[in-house]
């Protein structure tokens, strides 16, 4: 790093620097900073404690899902150099397959309701993962020989074909092994069964009593139970993220992972060393796709509650890409940090900020069109344009997202942590000098 700001000087301090080198510290610091920002803004604008808490748990849930996806994408792009922009396709296949397997049979009383096979959620989740991985195989077998940008176009086209298929009226309802199943077409499918978290934790007597006592202890009017339920779910999902992280770290540092990195750097060399690079790429692609499918399952059950094809628009894929690039491709910790920063700051941050501002100040009536704002600009009155921007913040933030992505590609292609050198050998060679320094410190 060339510029030495206060942050760099702080990190130059040996004890702080060593602490910062711990990945878990980085993760906690970033999550802490985001939460702190939300709490400060919430308190300043007079939101209730309940409100802030509910926002934070919902935020955590979304971050966990993004983190699963960016970790999986990191295996494709960061480790293997496979340019996959069909992420939503794999998620959709995972989610729909899980629903096919786990939804209860269509009931007679609701004739239009599309049913499923009513198997346990775990079976459905596994089926979703396997289906996404198999789709990955179908895409990978022919497409991995293509150049990176052709692979990109193939994967996004595949994701769109999948979306059209789920949207189509042709597969809305059909008979399979004597059951009425289907995609539900444009209306989509409802997640109308109990997942294990709900069944074994949230619906129990003791959870209700815990929620009640928490509400009483904090003197909250009404119930805090919905927020607590989300909290439990997001903690479970963060556990799943940790699982993903573990799988991908193990993969990355294994001999298998070293071959993947060699393919990323120079496939010809990897091939010259006698590695069947196609096989490695297919395995890596399938593993990533399968876990994207699993993330799609969690997204459907715990975030959406009902699935329809508009939840899997191509732009979602690019959101994951932005998260990965912010964190730094090639770094698992970076993927998690990128997911947190993307969701917390870029994606949900502006909406939260808008609510906060709206609750503090009386915003003058926002003009219906930008013309009103621009006209007032002539009289040096910024308020109407500002009000219009706040009113359209959900569109405005996507402009900002695009600009951030452009800026990252121009200035910081490595993101936060993508610049870290990795050791080719399993034993790091520079340990000795590091040890010596540690010795003198003590």
């Amino acid at each position, binding site marked *: 790093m060339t510029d030495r700001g206060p942050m760099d000087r702080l990190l130059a301090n040996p004890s702080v620097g060593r602490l910062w080198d711990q990945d878990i510290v980085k993760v906690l610091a970033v999550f802490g900073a985001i939460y702190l920002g939300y709490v400060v803004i919430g308190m300043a604008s007079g939101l209730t404690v309940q409100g802030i808490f509910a926002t934070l748990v919902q935020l955590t849930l979304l971050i966990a899902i993004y983190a699963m996806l960016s970790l999986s994408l990191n295996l494709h792009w960061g480790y293997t150099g496979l*340019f996959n922009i069909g992420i939503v396709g794999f998620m959709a296949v995972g989610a729909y397959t899980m629903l096919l397997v786990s939804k209860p049979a269509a009931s007679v009383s609701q004739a239009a309701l599309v049913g499923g096979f009513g198997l346990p959620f775990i079976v459905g989740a596994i089926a979703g993962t396997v289906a996404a991985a198999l789709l990955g195989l179908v895409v990978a077998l*022919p*497409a991995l020989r*293509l*150049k*990176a*940008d*052709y692979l*990109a*176009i*193939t994967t*996004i*086209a*595949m994701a*769109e*074909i999948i979306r*059209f*298929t789920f*949207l*189509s*009226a*042709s597969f809305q309802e059909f008979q399979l092994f004597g059951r009425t199943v289907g995609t539900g077409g444009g209306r989509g499918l409802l997640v109308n069964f109990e997942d294990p978290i709900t069944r074994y934790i949230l619906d129990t007597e003791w959870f209700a009593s815990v929620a009640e006592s928490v509400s009483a202890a904090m003197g909250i009017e009404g119930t805090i139970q919905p927020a607590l339920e989300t909290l439990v779910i997001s903690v479970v999902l963060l556990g799943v993220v940790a699982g993903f992280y573990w799988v991908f770290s193990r993969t990355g540092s294994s001999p298998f992972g070293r071959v993947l990195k060699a393919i990323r750097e120079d496939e010809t060399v990897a091939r010259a060393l006698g590695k069947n690079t196609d096989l490695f790429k297919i395995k890596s692609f399938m593993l990533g796709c399968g876990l994207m499918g699993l993330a799609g399952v969690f997204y459907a059950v715990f975030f959406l509650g009902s699935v329809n094809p508009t939840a899997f628009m191509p*732009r979602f894929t*690019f959101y994951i*890409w932005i998260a990965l*690039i912010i964190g730094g491709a090639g770094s698992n910790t970076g993927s998690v940090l990128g997911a947190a920063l993307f969701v917390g700051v870029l994606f949900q941050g502006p909406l939260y900020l808008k609510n906060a501002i709206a609750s503090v100040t009386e915003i003058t009536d926002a003009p*219906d*069109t*930008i*013309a009103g704002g621009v*006209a007032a600009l002539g009289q040096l009155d910024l308020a109407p344009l500002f009000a219009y921007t706040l009113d*359209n913040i959900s*569109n*405005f933030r*996507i*402009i900002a*997202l*695009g*600009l*951030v*992505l*452009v*800026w*990252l*590609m*121009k200035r910081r*292609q490595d993101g936060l942590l993508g610049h870290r050198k990795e050791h080719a050998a399993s034993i790091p060679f520079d340990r000795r000098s590091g040890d010596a320094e540690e010795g003198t410190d003590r």
Partner: protein
Amino acid sequence: MGISDTATSGWDLVRSRPGTFVVVLLFLALGLDLLGTLLTGEMAVADLGSLLWTGLMQGLIIGLAGIGLSMTYSILNFANFAHGDYITAGAFTGWSVTYLIAGFGAADAADLLLLGAGGSVFGAGLDIGITTTPLAILGGLVVAGLATIAIAMGVDRSVFKTMREAGGISLLIASVGVAFALRYIIVFIYTPSNRGTTAANLVPQFDVWVIDGMVQINAHDLTILVASVALMLGVHVLLQRTKLGKAMRAMADNENLALITGIPTERIIQWTWIIGGGLTGVAGYLTVLWRGTITFRLGWFLLLLIFAAVILGGIGSIYGAILGGVLIGLTISVSQVWIPTDFARAAAFGIMILILLLRPQGIFAGRETA
């Protein structure tokens, strides 16, 4: 592969490229099936004619927009995902001017420029159409081209220029960022609502008798046909008769070699954006004229089809882009004979994936601007 070659090596083809062989067989079977349904009278020839005509219109628009994508793809070596939103930008700026001219004095200028955002003005209410307001259409068409040129060159100067040495993938990702920013700037200005733009009842219709029925053609179809064919011919002449075309071919082949031969590469790149951007903006404008509605997603919806066309025709070839566009347009509409309309676009993507797998260099073998 020469003609005599293909004639003698039928069996070699089957053995060396079984995939291509199967696809050729499949298309032969589809052709025979189509012929069968026509002969037995299951489908009227005129119905097929209507499908072909619609496909041609859509294909011309895709081809026109594809020329720019193909040129920048081969000269700058990256897939520009912002290209779709150049189309949208051209459509919106051009139609702003059309509204302004057509409704001048009849409504508030700001409402007209914003295409009646918030439901203040309606295109049908302004009697917009090629026969009723020809000047407004012409003005809009020209402005759509000019504005898109300005946007494309502005984006190139601020984003892509400093990244010339970066890899194709970095540029691709940056172009996704440009696409997001551009699309939502348009939403921010014009609001996200869909709206009608033309007075459909005022557009003259012609019924053309084809063997067993009528094929309906309207004046807007003819406008698209004339405008796009004229522009395509213009580009053809420009690239064949001037040194520009030769310089572009040289750059697409080897940029460093072109530079030391004395070709001003930066200026050629600017010309690429001027030609490509102009055609793209006009294509966006014509799409809206043809459909009679405008939405901020129109460019994004076209983008993958344009990629399909460009890859089908061979990246770098403008004739490939045009032919690919027409083929993709025809695929979208004629595929409805066999599959539900829901899958029309899927069929086009399917063809693109097949081409990528079987003949990634495309029909025109690529890298031959002009």
